[in-house]
């Protein structure tokens, strides 16, 4: 390092101690900046609430108690966080491998379709076999739905942003087709939903008397697995290398094209598991297509991207990030109920939070780099 003391020793000493105490603030910055951004966004939301003629204080109080006040609420928040976490973790894998996966929605649907079909085909298998089977089926469904745009990108040069958006549309219509035809429940009123699926496939509730179910453990395990995959396995080295610099990866003897397919397949598999969890962990225990804009996916395919970026594309940091967004979504429903604002308000607020948080990330990065440079001074001084 090209560092020399142009200052006198006292100055250096001063700077040194100031630097080391500043450096201690570094982890704090990583958390504080996005949290401040959320606070700023909520302030904008408060203005909107005032404009609607409701009390922001009351609204936000309902939001907080509705998402964090008590074991039941926390459990509901965790339930909301699950699909975000699963999709987000998958997004970490894809983005780190340099692939922009906008196809979470479609991959959730594909996972849900395949896992539902599995449960419909072999409903009588014991839980210990059926539950892993439907989860794996979900992963396979989502994985295939990710691998297709992956293959198109790797071997045919089709831009993945484009193809994953198209794959979302295709999946949504395919689901609608199945729920009018092959998978629709018998009944007088034709509702776009399947039969109540086999009880053997219900994700069991976790002890504690809340509605929190096995899906939560699965989401956490997937996050840990993705962390190990990315940072502790040779495959992870390859995927990240390809993401950062495909040229150098090719020169190093790595199969670049295959890596792209694998990354999107893994990413899709995580979303596919989310699809299975959304079906078998739901209170309806069936696959429902509401024909609405987001349907049963709860828009997790999109929100998961935001969550992953919020977590700095780190699978483990995506876990708390999902919680934050889960709390916001869940609290939003409570707020809607408490102060009687339309649900549109929550969607708009969600958008504002996304904009503020993403806008703050660069600031966080800069501040962190600034802290790192302080530490850099320190290390080089120590070496000298």
């Amino acid at each position, binding site marked *: 390092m090209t560092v020399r003391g142009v200052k006198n020793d006292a100055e250096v000493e001063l700077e040194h101690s100031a630097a080391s105490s500043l450096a201690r603030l570094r982890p704090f910055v990583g958390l504080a900046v996005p949290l401040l951004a959320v606070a700023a966004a909520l302030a904008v939301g408060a203005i*909107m609430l005032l404009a*609607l003629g409701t009390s922001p204080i009351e609204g936000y109080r309902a939001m907080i108690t509705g998402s964090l006040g008590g074991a039941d609420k926390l459990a509901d928040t965790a339930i909301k966080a699950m699909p975000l976490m699963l999709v987000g973790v998958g997004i970490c894998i894809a983005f780190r491998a340099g692939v*922009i996966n*906008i196809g979470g929605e479609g991959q959730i649907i594909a996972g849900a379709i395949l896992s539902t079909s599995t449960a419909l085909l072999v409903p009588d298998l014991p839980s210990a076999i059926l539950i892993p089977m439907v989860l794996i089926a979900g992963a396979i469904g989502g994985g295939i739905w990710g691998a297709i745009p992956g293959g*198109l990108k790797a071997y*045919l*040069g*089709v*831009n993945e*942003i*484009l*193809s994953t*958006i*198209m*794959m979302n*549309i*295709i999946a949504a*219509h*395919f689901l*609608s*087709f199945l729920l*009018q*035809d092959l998978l629709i429940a018998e009944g007088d009123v034709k509702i776009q939903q399947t039969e109540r699926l086999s009880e053997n496939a219900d994700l069991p509730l976790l002890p504690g008397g809340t509605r929190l179910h096995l899906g939560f453990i699965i989401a956490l395990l997937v996050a840990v697995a993705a962390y190990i995959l990315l940072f502790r396995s040779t495959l992870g080295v390859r995927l990240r290398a390809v993401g950062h610099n495909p040229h150098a990866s090719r020169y190093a003897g790595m199969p670049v094209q295959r890596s792209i397919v694998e990354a999107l397949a893994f990413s899709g598999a995580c979303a596919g598991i989310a699809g299975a969890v959304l079906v078998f962990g739901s209170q309806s225990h069936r696959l429902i297509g509401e024909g609405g*804009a987001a349907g049963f996916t709860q828009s997790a395919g*999109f929100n998961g*991207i*935001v969550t992953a*970026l919020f977590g700095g594309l780190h699978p483990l940091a995506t876990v708390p990030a999902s919680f934050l967004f889960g709390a916001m979504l869940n609290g939003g429903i409570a707020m809607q109920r408490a102060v009687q604002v*339309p649900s*549109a*308000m*929550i*969607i*708009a*607020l*969600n*958008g*504002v*939070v*996304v*904009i503020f948080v*993403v*806008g*703050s*990330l*660069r*600031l966080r990065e800069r501040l962190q780099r600034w802290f790192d440079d302080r530490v850099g001074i320190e290390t080089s001084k120590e070496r000298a």
Partner: protein
Amino acid sequence: MGDFFTVSALVVTFASGIRLATPFLLASLGETLGQRSGVLNLGVEGVMLLGAFGAYYTVLKAGSQPLALLVAIAIGIVMGLLYAVVTLVMQAEQGISGIGVFLFGLGFTDLAFQKWVGTPIPIARLEPWPIPGLSDIPVIGEVLFQHNPLVYGAFLLVPIMTYLISRTTFGLNVRAVGETPEAADTLGVSVNGTRLVTIIVANVLASLAGAVVALEVGNFQQNLTAGRGFIAIALVYFGAWRPFGAMVGSLLFGFVLALVNQWGALGIISGSASSLAAMAPAVLTIVVLVFISNRVGQPAALTRPFDRSN
């Protein structure tokens, strides 16, 4: 069950295809310019919704369609400035802030509609302006020259945008800034200034695209644009970052939608088959892309913020 291969059915289909293509075209032309300068805006859908609501509300209250377009333009400018602050000043990840804009637009327009309008009250729809002479040509006249002025305007923008990008100094700056912003900077071209302009134009066109939907429908509903903004972005890639390519993509998408629709109307497809048919535009887009190699064309600095000190 009707017969599709009659002249009148084909005329209906093609004319409808052109109408359906118009919002795609406007939005994708704007996004093409934006991306050529290196800025991705995934928020097109949100801005479309805002433009749609603004135009609808203006006609509802003031009864003027020209004024509605001005309002849509103003909304586009405001959203453009906002997006510029987020992406140029704060240097936020462009794709994600776009999703934020989408969510905001989706929620806010619904909120505003419920609060200020309440129930979908019809407004005057855009009237077709048949072009004298040309509109009388059999078949072709009916397909091409009996549309509302915004349709003509959108298609007229294709050569204008092409000229702007490839023949003006501004276009030169845009291309340079989207490809190698550092090089443009060293020659005194303002990277963020250029991007600011393209962002505003892109947002204005997205907002107008939404206005077209609202004024053609003559009404408003929650999520009026129904995902058209996302398709428009896809069409930019489809068109390999060229205005003409965006037009081909928009027309293709519009025609396939119209075709599926026409077949539905004639009873050629019915029941659950119509959900399979609804996939057609998306499937076709992917299939076409497999055959068109559009590797070339993506601006090298797309989504990369510019910062001189880096």
